[in-house]
């Protein structure tokens, strides 16, 4: 095969200086071991093993249908798995019930389609979890909620309903809602894919600042710029298998598998 990167000058031009490649951290927070998941006959996760350390940012990429969303959703058990184990902060994922609800409150999730509660204001969206799950006092939750909305740059939208906000603002509100639970880790499933191009940047900026602040993050995205600048590792999935797992510079400069090379060349031609 041709030297990877040679026919992809744009990538080389974009190669960042001073990324966080080798800043890998302490104990593992999320550990998947031999995870298998089927949808009927479809083997969506095929013997997936993965460990994400505290403070680590892992970007998951791969072709459509490769199982990226499913992988993300198994981590807070929105999808149950068929075999293997998933451990979060040293504890295996509990089955349905109170313990699972508690675990989910410790793992923030951001969806492609935002999924803000349509009948609640932005501030109510952000305070609902702290008040109903964490039993915080409404006044305290409100104060912290406003601070979070300020942090993601939409404090002035607090009293509006989701439908009144732009996509970028809604997604930032959804990030604030997840952060309000003071999660130990955050999962992002294509957080910018439903956005108009001019709004992608504002959401990525929030995510980048989270990564800098040491949040543990698993991010499914096709934003290669984010992967290069903010990720410690890039994971490439195909057909439910975890095909590659490497630091971004290494992955983009020198993808080992044919599938990854093929995938990279495709997303680069657009």
């Amino acid at each position: 095969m041709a030297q990877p990167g040679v026919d992809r000058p744009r990538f080389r031009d974009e190669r960042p200086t001073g990324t966080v490649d080798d800043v890998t951290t302490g104990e593992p927070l999320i550990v998947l071991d031999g995870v298998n998941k089927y949808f009927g006959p479809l083997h969506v996760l095929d013997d997936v093993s993965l460990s994400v350390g505290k403070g680590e940012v892992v970007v998951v990429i791969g072709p459509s249908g490769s199982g990226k969303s499913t992988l993300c959703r198994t981590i807070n058990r929105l999808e149950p798995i068929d075999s293997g184990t998933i451990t979060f902060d040293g504890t295996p994922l509990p089955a349905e019930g109170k313990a699972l609800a508690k675990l989910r409150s410790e793992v923030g999730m951001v969806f492609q389609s935002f999924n803000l509660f349509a009948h609640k204001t932005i501030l109510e969206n952000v305070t609902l979890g702290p008040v109903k799950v964490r039993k915080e006092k409404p006044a305290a939750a409100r104060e912290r909620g406003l601070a979070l909305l300020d942090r993601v740059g939409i404090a002035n939208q607090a009293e509006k309903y989701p439908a009144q906000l732009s996509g970028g603002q809604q997604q930032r509100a959804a990030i604030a809602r997840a952060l309000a639970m003071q999660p130990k880790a955050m999962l992002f499933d294509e957080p910018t894919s439903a956005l108009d191009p001019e709004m992608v940047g504002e959401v990525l900026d929030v995510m980048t600042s989270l990564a800098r602040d040491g949040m543990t993050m698993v991010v499914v995205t096709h934003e290669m710029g984010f992967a290069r600048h903010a990720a410690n590792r890039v994971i490439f999935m195909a057909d439910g298998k975890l095909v590659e797992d490497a630091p971004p510079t290494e992955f983009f400069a020198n993808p080992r598998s044919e599938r990854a090379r093929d995938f990279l060349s495709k997303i680069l031609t657009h």
Partner: protein
Amino acid sequence: MHVFADPTNLDAYLSGFLWILKLTGASAVIALVLGVLLAAFRVSPVPVLRGFGAAWVNIFRNTPLTLIIFFCYFGLFSTLGLTLSDDLNLNNFWLGVVGLSVYTAAFVCESVRSGINTVPAGQAEAARAIGLTFFQTLRIVVLPQAGRAVVAPLGSVLIALCKNATIVGTIGLIEASSVMKQLINDNGDAVIPIFLVFAGTFAAILVPTGYFFGWLANRLAVKR
């Protein structure tokens, strides 16, 4: 109208409709609570509860109401000795309420469930993802948004319940349709007017009910 000029007949007419209203009111409350609970069962993650909800709906929705009311009287009361009141009329009334409630709950359940299905799945997922329990998710996030889609079919269920209440006449409660039958028997010369008065009274109760639910559905519209 000479028939209703007779105070005895007028009393019978009024008490017949009073029974209908009481049957409807009591059964509506019980069926609503039961139906929402069954709908929650049917969308719950627990297979046993889902099975229970589905079985209830399939059994009671597909059995003629007359059979259910007969079973309440001849099965629960005559054979199994279930007595709900020492007063004969009240006993029949409550047996009727039991039958109407279990039957109507099946329809309430399906109305609520179809309303729940109009709420995008992402709403419940986001709720679960922040750690709300199943029942919190339903109560705080899903049901409030299902409101509009549920209210209109619930109105139809309530209207059907009110008309179905006449079936309790078959187990001896002198409700409106039994009174009508008696008046027709006694006044063969005024069959059509008697019929029109009873039908008109039902319409006078139910047409505004229908409009009220339509208005309520519009008020509950959720903007998204």
